[in-house]
């Protein structure tokens, strides 16, 4: 063993007799091995950081939602398998062709087909978790579902529809409030912006909680959504409406002009 070979063994797992023999005969390598060995050992003395408790909480929440989502998806899959068997086979064949083409044309700067497919699967999984959580009995779970909706593509109409349902029908004010905020990304996507804007317009007359009404009004003002003007005028002239909501509606109408 020469010095070059010995250097790569200095921090090795199985150094062997050759290495020991080399060290015995080479002062320079012996000195270096001792020096970097000490440095190597001292790395152990750097104390270790600990993750926060919410890491564990978030993991189990994700795992639970995943299992629940898979369980609810299973019967539907079984039922549809026979009916859609040929379509699944055709899709599999298309994927195989796509992968083959991906290999052929690789090098054009595009990600390989399988990478795109995996990305799509991740997107589907996020959608599944968000939708599953938004259907839970517990308000805190539904709130988490609303939070997960930020991780889906803003063009995802299924998640948008779930958020709209939450805004209109969730019995918990906090969940509705969070869902109003979660609609914002959808107003920036060409595929969903109209549906998202309409949803906010239509939610305002149904809403009774002042805090959510104000959130909806702010959102409409931000969007400069003129279709909401009649409802805003109604709120301004309604003597029974909360004074804070009335003032906000006045402000929104001014802003839209």
């Amino acid at each position, binding site marked *: 063993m020469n010095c070059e070979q010995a250097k790569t063994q200095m*921090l090795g797992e199985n150094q062997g007799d050759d290495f020991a023999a080399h060290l015995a005969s080479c002062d320079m390598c012996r000195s270096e091995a001792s020096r*970097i060995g*000490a*440095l*190597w050992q*001292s790395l152990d003395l750097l104390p*270790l950081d600990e993750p926060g408790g919410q890491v*564990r909480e978030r*993991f189990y929440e994700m795992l639970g939602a995943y*299992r629940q989502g898979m369980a609810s998806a299973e019967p539907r899959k079984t039922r549809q398998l026979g009916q859609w068997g040929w379509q699944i086979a055709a899709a599999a064949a298309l994927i195989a062709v796509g992968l083959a083409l991906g290999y052929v044309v690789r090098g054009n700067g595009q990600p390989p087909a399988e990478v795109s497919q995996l990305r799509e699967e991740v997107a589907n999984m996020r959608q599944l978790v968000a939708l599953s959580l938004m259907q839970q009995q517990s308000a805190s779970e539904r709130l988490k579902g609303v939070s997960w909706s930020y991780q889906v593509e803003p063009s995802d109409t299924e998640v948008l529809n779930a958020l709209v349902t939450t805004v209109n029908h969730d019995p918990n004010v906090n969940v509705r409030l969070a869902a109003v905020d979660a609609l914002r990304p959808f107003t920036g996507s060409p595929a969903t912006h109209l549906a998202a804007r309409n949803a906010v317009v239509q939610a305002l007359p149904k809403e009774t909680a002042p805090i959510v009404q104000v959130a909806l009004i702010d959102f409409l003002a931000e969007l400069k959504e003129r279709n909401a003007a009649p409802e805003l005028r109604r709120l301004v002239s309604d003597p029974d409406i909360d004074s804070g909501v009335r003032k906000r509606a006045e402000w929104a109408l001014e802003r839209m002009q």
Partner: protein
Amino acid sequence: MAEVSAGQVARLAVLFERYHRGLFRYFVSMNRDREQAEDLVQEVFFRMLRYRTSYDPAHSFTAWMYQIARNAGVDQVRKRGMAQVVDIDSFALVSGSPGPEESVSRGQDLALLRRAMGQLPEDKREILVLSRFQGMKHEDIAEVLGCEVGTVKVRVYRAIRALEQIYFSLEKEKVS
């Protein structure tokens, strides 16, 4: 992981309990951001669940997991549209102020050692973190990095030598 891959997804909890701290420390070591490291740990387990069928029991689980972790880290950087910026003066695997054991121990000044780690180029820091802090075998590191075992040995050696040089230059600065 083989059980998770076969459909027993609840068994992922066992892997989480065993590996989430190591993953967290890997990410903290690489990007110095606790919050981001926690998000990335979550992302790794999410991807493990999602891509569970791609796991091959004939290969090392640790290597597979750290391949996912590296990809998640790269995606995060790409998503943020910038290179990771490491605060070179704050590298540590520890939070809070340095304890008395960090002053001088075994002839090494641990505060300087932390700074030296922070100043190491990312690829060298990564290989030290994987081999020393994560205790991974060279074979597994080779699989993660996509290189030969011999290359890993050379890179580990170069990384520790680079660390030594930075450490001594910091030590000289301190004395002068």
